[in-house]
Each structure stands twice: as structure tokens, then as C-alpha cells.
């Protein structure tokens, strides 16, 4: 029932060619989880391709961990179905799902050495001693800890414990790897390094990965697709660029990256692909993308990413482009960029982040400026969407 793979299996994430990829497909259909009357997870449907790296992204209490625990088999869904490779696993105990799980606090067995920890899943599968030793050695090599086999977990640093947990979860060649905030306890530098390591291992092995995090940057860096969860539901699912460029609602726009929100009104909507013209608070107009369902006259929220905006002196005339006029309130030097806060006449502030290049104009607080953006960089959302938080 289980395949044990060595780590030199060719990587073929999601590819239909060559040998069958090790990763299994995973699907959730209309999964719900109630604790008493309160819903932890509501109507979650998700299809994950073999070999895909999918992240469940959300704040605490969004249901992302509960969803992962249901896939792992630690919690039963109240309704709905979870399938691995098309076969329903409802009611199948965790021990027989053959999934690798990496826990937030690593959950290494403190009374066993690193080697014994990694050998544990192999012993449970009654794999012979010689084979076991070879697989443990391969797994230790894979996570770059070849000489830590005889240490106890508490003798290792956080990053090393994390690697051991990863090796233990992968040593038996699971077709799906589940990770619950695996890097939460590490400092920033180490976290970024481990993100790369996990990506490398994912590419090498080709297992399907479901990754849970509250860190949007981590999700953007690592995932093929991201499912953003809020209040137990998936509010948007897509590739990182889709979520960033075309957030489904204000909450997603706010949660992923930084956003400026400008309240506008739709003036004209010629047809699906042509730009929409909106009225800005100061009475001028702008042309933007998005919100094809909005009718003329509807309230809309314009999403502007700080790094896509340009500051110019207000007196310079740039007729015909999208712009908002205001005064610089604050200038923050970030090293790689400069962030300016611009206050509009109606009181809202707009954040602008410009790369520090030679010759890029520095603006001083108090200076009158205009904020510009290209038509492709303004994203329109329905104005009164209920998902703001």
C-alpha cells in the first residue's frame, strides 16, 4: 500500500509526461466543520493537482489549520468529502492516509535520537533494517544534516529541528506533504533560507504540498497557488500574481501586500475589455481595470499598490493621465526605496513607494505633488463589498 521512494526520484511536478509524478491529486468538496454551532470551516472546495504547491493563507481563526487537520485525518469534517487520488478518505484514520505532516512546533519525539525519529515511520511500515538505514541516510543528506543522526532533538537549533521534522515527514515517500506554519518559530533570515530549502525539496521530490501560513510574503514566494481563507471560507484562490494583481475584494487586497483604497464612482463602462472610467474624489476622472460587473453609477473602490505609483511635482502638467493631487505629509527612507505619504484634500492618505535610483526625485514634506499611475495598475472593486474588516 505504501511506496517508499528514494530522494533521487526525478522531479516532475504536475507533469503528465515521463514517469508518473510522485504527488497525488487532492480534492475537497463542500467540506464543513462545525464545533457546536460555530463553523470553523464552511463550504470549502478545492482541487489540487498532483505535484502542486498550494498554500492556505489566512489570519488566525480563518479555518486554515482546521482544513489541514481534516486532510491529515486528525479531525473529521462535519460534512463534505476529501479525496486523495480520487478515493474518498473520509473516516480513514490518520495513520493509514500515508501523508507526511510537518507540525508548527516540529513535534519531534524528545526521547528518540534524530536517526530514530526519522526511522520511526519506516519501522511502522515494517521496512527492513538495511533499507531503513539507507533511507534515513538519504533523508539526512537531503536536509543537509548528515552527521546529526545521533543527536537528540533538544540538542539542535530551531532550524535544524525543522529540517529533521521535514526529513521524518518525507522519508517514507508520502505523495502529499502537509505543513502547518512550519517556519513560524524561526527568525526572519532562517525563515527565508528554509523557504528556499522547502522549495528545492518540493522540486526534487515532486510531492503535492499543502502549506498553511499567515505570512502573505511566504505564501507569495513559495506557492503555485494560494487559497486565501477568511472566516472559515476560501475567499479567493489563484496564482500569487493573480491574487496580488487582481484581488477579489478589499479584504484580500489589504491582506496580501499593501494597498491604497480610493472611493470612486463608475462613470462609464463601454464593454468588457475596454477601460472603465471612474470619478475620483477631487472631481477628476481616471481610467482603470477590473470589476466588469459594475454598472454605470455604482460605487467602487480603487485599489492602488504603493510601488506602482509615481510622484511628480504638482505644477508639472500631465493632462490625460490618471492622477490624484495632494501634499507630501511624511517621507520615510527605506534603503532600497523611499516611502512617501501623500495627503489628499479630502483627508485620505496615499502611500507611494519609489525605488531609490540615481536621479529619482526626492520630495520634501509639505510639498504639493501629484500621484500618477498607469491604467493597468489601477484595480477596481465593488465599493460596498461586505468583506472589509
Amino acid at each position, binding site marked *: 500500500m505504501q511506496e517508499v521512494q528514494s530522494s533521487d526520484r526525478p522531479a516532475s511536478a504536475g507533469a503528465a509526461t515521463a514517469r508518473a509524478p510522485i504527488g497525488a491529486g487532492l480534492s475537497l468538496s463542500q467540506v464543513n466543520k462545525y464545533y457546536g454551532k460555530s463553523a470553523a470551516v464552511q463550504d470549502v472546495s478545492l482541487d489540487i493537482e498532483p505535484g502542486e504547491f498550494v498554500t492556505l493563507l489566512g489570519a488566525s481563526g480563518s479555518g486554515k489549520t482546521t482544513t489541514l487537520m481534516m486532510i491529515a485525518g486528525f479531525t473529521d469534517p462535519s460534512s463534505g468529502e476529501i479525496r486523495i487520488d480520487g478515493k474518498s478518505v473520509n473516516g480513514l484514520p490518520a*495513520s493509514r492516509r500515508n501523508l507526511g505532516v510537518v507540525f508548527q512546533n516540529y513535534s519531534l519525539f524528545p*526521547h528518540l535520537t534524530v536517526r530514530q525519529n526519522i526511522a520511526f515511520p519506516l519501522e*511502522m511500515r515494517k521496512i527492513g533494517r538495511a533499507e531503513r538505514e539507507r533511507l534515513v541516510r538519504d533523508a539526512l543528506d537531503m536536509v543537509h544534516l548528515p552527521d546529526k543522526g545521533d543527536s537528540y532533538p533538544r540538542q539542535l537549533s530551531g532550524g535544524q529541528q525543522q529540517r529533521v521534522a521535514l526529513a521524518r515527514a518525507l522519508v517514507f515517500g508520502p505523495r502529499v506533504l502537509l505543513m502547518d506554519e512550519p517556519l513560524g518559530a524561526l527568525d526572519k533570515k532562517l525563515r527565508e533560507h528554509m523557504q528556499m530549502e522547502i522549495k528545492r525539496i518540493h522540486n526534487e521530490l515532486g510531492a503535492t504540498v499543502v502549506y498553511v501560513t499567515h505570512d502573505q510574503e511566504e505564501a507569495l514566494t513559495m506557492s503555485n497557488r494560494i487559497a486565501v481563507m477568511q472566516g472559515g471560507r476560501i475567499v479567493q484562490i489563484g496564482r500569487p500574481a493573480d491574487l496580488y494583481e487582481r484581488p477579489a475584494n478589499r479584504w484580500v487586497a489589504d491582506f496580501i501586500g499593501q494597498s491604497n483604497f480610493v472611493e470612486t464612482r463608475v462613470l462609464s463602462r463601454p464593454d468588457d475589455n475596454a477601460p472603465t472610467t471612474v470619478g475620483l474624489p477631487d472631481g477628476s476622472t481616471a481610467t482603470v481595470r477590473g470589476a466588469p460587473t459594475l454598472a454605470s453609477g455604482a460605487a467602487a473602490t480603487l485599489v492602488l499598490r504603493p510601488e506602482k505609483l509615481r510622484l511628480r511635482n504638482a505644477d508639472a502638467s500631465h493632462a490625460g493621465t490618471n492622477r490624484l493631487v495632494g501634499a507630501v505629509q511624511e517621507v520615510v527612507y527605506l534603503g532600497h526605496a523611499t516611502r512617501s505619504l501623500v495627503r489628499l484634500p479630502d483627508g485620505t492618505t496615499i502611500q507611494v513607494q519609489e525605488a531609490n535610483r540615481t536621479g529619482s526625485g526626492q520630495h520634501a514634506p509639505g510639498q504639493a505633488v501629484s500621484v500618477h499611475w498607469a491604467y493597468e495598475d489601477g484595480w477596481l472593486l465593488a465599493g460596498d463589498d461586505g468583506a472589509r474588516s
Partner: protein
Amino acid sequence: MTAGLASPSQGGAGRPRPWVLLAPALLFLLVFFIYPMADMLLRSLDGQGQGYTLEHYARLASEPVWLKIISITFQISLLTTLCTLLLGYPLAYLLSALRPRMAGLLMILVIIPYFTSILVRTYAWMVLLGTDGIVNRLLIDLGLIDSPLALMYNRFAVLLGMSYVLLPYMVLALYSVMRGIDSSLLRAAHSLGASRLSAFLRIFLPLTFPGIAAGGLIVFIMSLGFFVTPALMGSDLDTMISMVIQQQVETYFDWSFASSLAAVLLALTLIAFFVYERVVGMEHLFRAKQ
């Protein structure tokens, strides 16, 4: 002199030195513990006006009855420890798996017997187990037996009574260790393919060894000096060392021989501690918390 330079962790200025705080307890122990113990050890060597002698220990070693009693004391203590472990382990496991509120409530039920005198509790068992006791009468009324069973004045009664009295110590020791075991370790074991039984045997059980050792030590050492229960519920074959100490003092007024018996009991206790130190010293690797 502690003012000014005292670090915050030491509680700030004006705090008395440690020995000042320790003095009352040390003084108490000196007068009521160290001195009597030294006196007892000296008495066990008392040569009735002719200096010190080992004759009391020689007598203890030469008359088989005393070694027999030490052996019985050991047997009863070990069996009591085993009984409390077998009874206490599942109970502590259940408590540790409950929500803290519920566990606290049930823990009070475990501890409530402490509020009653051990004498009262032992007599209660006698009422239950006697020839004309509730258990025998119930069994006869139900027609399961014809004549009363001998439930009292034997080894069974002694073990029952002692296990009952000492069970809470075992449960508390096990519970505190089990509570500290991260439940995600068992989840991890399941996710790695372990059945419930393997997860218990390979992960949970080894992680509770410190609790088993601590509970076992407490129960074993308390059993060594037990008096009331074996005296009231046992037969002559269940005579424990503290009973003969009492007998030597009360009946024969032989303080020296009683003292030598007490010294042996003390030595046995210290050996038990030593063994625990050695075992649990090693077991420190096996702590549940990292």
C-alpha cells in the same frame, strides 16, 4: 548591603539574605528531625554502659525472623507500588486527556479521601471486607458463595488497603507528567503510520517514565514505613518492619533493638532514593518538555 546593586531578579532592595529565610526551617529540622535521628542511631549502638556495640545489628542479622520481616516489608511495598501503578496509570491517563476544568474536578475526587483519617478509612475497609461484612453478605445473598470468603487478615487485604491509601500519590505524579506531554507528538506518530497501540508503546509510555519513577518512589518509600493498615488488616504473615519497631518499644522496652530496626528502615529508604537518583538521572534525557 543588598540595596542598590541587587538585580531585579533577586527581588530588589531590602530583601533578607537567603540564610535568614532558611533559618526557621533549618532550626526546626535540627531540633525535631536531625537530633532525634542522631539520637536513634546512637541508641542502636548503645552498649548499656560499656561504650558502643554492634550487638543489636548482629542479633538482627542472626535471627531469621527479622530478615523475614524485612523481606515481607519489601514484598508488600513492591506489590503495593505495582498495584497503584496498574490502577493509577489508566486513571491518570483519563484525567490528562480531559479538559482542565473537568480534570480538576475529578482530581478533587481523587484527593478527597485525604481529608479523612487513615484510621477511619482502614476501619471502613474492615466493615466492608469482614466475615460478616457488606461484600460477603452481598455475595451470599446473591447466591454466588455459600460461606464467607476470607477477605480480611491476609495479604490481599493489606495490599488493597495500602493501595487505596497510596493511590492518589501515584495518580498525582503520573498526571503531572502526562499533562506535560505535547499531544501533537501523538498526532505526529499517527501521521507517520503508528496505530494507537504503537503510538502509546513507542511514544507515550516512554515519555511517562519519569512519572512512573517518581510515583513509584513515593509509594514505595511510604509503603516501607506503613503501620496502621498492615497492623489492622493483615495477619502475622504480613508483619512489617514498623510494626515490630512498635512492638519492641511498647512490649519489650528494648529501645536499642528498636533503634537498630529503625536504622535498617532508614537505610532501605536511602537505598531506594539512591536507585531512583541513578535511574532518573539517566531518564533526564526522556523529559516530555523540550
